[in-house]
């Protein structure tokens, strides 16, 4: 019973299961009575929103340590607030600043989470 035994069993099982799924999918594709599945992405604008969201998250993680918690979070929240509600930019920035300060008080001072200091540290 080496360390590779359990993963080997799992691998065999996974190959078997995916083969079965493949057969099932091929059979289902031949059956004309089954309607086509719905589209994977419901709309183009929805997909763009998703990509923007993931991009914003990735930039947030990248800037978290160099810029520090306060600045990177402010950027992240502004980016999302402004994109989703561009009509009132002043309000968006105000809410972002307030959220950053509240979350800093809550996480850093109250819960004592060690947040990255970055530029302001």
């Amino acid at each position, binding site marked *: 019973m080496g360390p590779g035994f359990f993963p080997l069993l799992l691998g065999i099982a996974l190959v078997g299961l995916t083969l079965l799924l493949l057969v099932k999918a091929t059979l289902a594709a031949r059956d004309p009575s089954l309607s086509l599945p719905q589209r994977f992405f419901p709309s183009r604008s929805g997909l763009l929103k998703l990509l923007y969201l993931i991009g914003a998250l990735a930039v947030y*993680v990248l800037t978290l340590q160099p810029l520090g918690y306060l600045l990177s979070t402010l950027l992240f929240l502004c980016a999302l*607030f402004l994109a989703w509600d561009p009509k009132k930019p002043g309000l968006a920035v105000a809410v972002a600043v307030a959220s950053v300060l509240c979350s800093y008080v809550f*996480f850093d001072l109250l819960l004592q989470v060690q947040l990255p200091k970055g530029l302001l540290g």
Partner: protein
Amino acid sequence: MDSGIGQGLLTGFAVASTPANLLFCFLGVTLGTLIGVLPGLGPAGAIAMLLPFTFGMDVTTAIIMLCGIYYGAMYGGSTTSILINIPGEVASVVTTFDGYQMARKGRAGPALAIAAIGSFIGGTFSVVALTFVAAPIATAALSFGPPEYFALTLVGVVAAAYLSGKSLLKGLVMVIVGLMFSTIGVDIVTGGTRFTFGRIELYSGVEIVPILMGIFGVTEIMFLVEQPFLKQEIQTRVRLRDLWPSNPELRASAGPIARGSLIGFVIGLLPGAGAMVSSFLSYATEKKLSQHPEAFGTGVIEGVAGPETANNSAAGGAMIPLLVLGVPYSIITAIMLSALITHGLSPSPMLMTKQPEFFWGVVASMYIGNVLCVILNLPLVGMWVSILRVPFAKLFPLVLLCCVVGVYTINSRLFDLWVMIASGGIGYLLRKADYPAAPLVLALVLGPLMENAMRQSILISHGDPFIFFTRPISGVLMFVSLVFVSLPSVGWLAKRLGGAWRFALPRE
């Protein structure tokens, strides 16, 4: 035995009513309700988000708070089901059928009240039942060896695969993927590393919280963001004096609540099923027993009372496999197990006798948590509803912020955050392709337990794999797993053969 329970509960209430534990129980219930009310985020998301913040606490306090979050999120979920027709989590999907219809007829108050009353009775019933059932099960489980534990975990993952999605095959694929992820890291028997690709971050295995936050936080947000946002019609005119159900409504609810308590507890105990199945089963039972089944779906109070009772009762039932056997059968209890392991505590049949303060403290806190939930949810329902008026565009970035900080808290490293984002993306694709996430998470947590039990069993039997089938308890459990796996193919075969049989008959 009875004096044992009495003694235990006394100890428990002494532990649970210390100011710190009461405070965190209250905090848990409040935060849980808050997150449960938010659309898309249910108990699993709530617990995953707040889990990292409990790591600094004492074990008992941490679990008390997590239980509080769980109850709170369940209550919060039913509130949104009734008022805006959006179930906060799967277990309150059924509540929307009649609950929202009641709200549209202006009976939102009684619907909320009966949901809270039912949840309270169901929750309390299952805690009382837990108190009495736990000891005998623990005694029986003392004789369990590695083969029994392997079989217990196998039934758990197979049942989850069978019950959590449309396709058993896809569920099983997710189980295997979850088990594979669980093998990453240093192998505890040989000390060698597996699948780490030289990354030091992976030596101690995959961190579970980032994956949970990805699947239950980021994925949910992705689904909400993708859809064009609809303005919900919120039934807000709920005044305190409108809350109390009328006498006929109370009488109609008594039966469903009694049956729901029982159904929930029993289903909660079983592998795979959990809160969602129990609520559907309760709804179906009430509809069958009702003298006016055609009225179901138009806003009858029985359709709210039964399922809401059952899903809370199932929550208590689900704690038994976790606390007594150390084998979680639902996502929530799986998350709690990973919390316990982080605190260096592994539940076993010995838990009750070895750490009575922990066991009974947690049980007693569930009584307290149920009371707190009713106090928080009924009079303050207006406050929770007002949270729904905060625009979604302002809400979801803050939820993501909490996920990021939560994940960063665990190890203060960016690697975990990348895991979270990747899990969110993968979770999104999986859900689009109808692959259920629940079996993956359950298998990820159960994986190490399962592998160890298998290796030890084979070691005991000197390499004979039939050890799992020849011991009576593990044999029965293995058979049950086989039945779960073969059910769909039996149905498929019967249909095929039936079809062939008809073709063979001469046509008239």
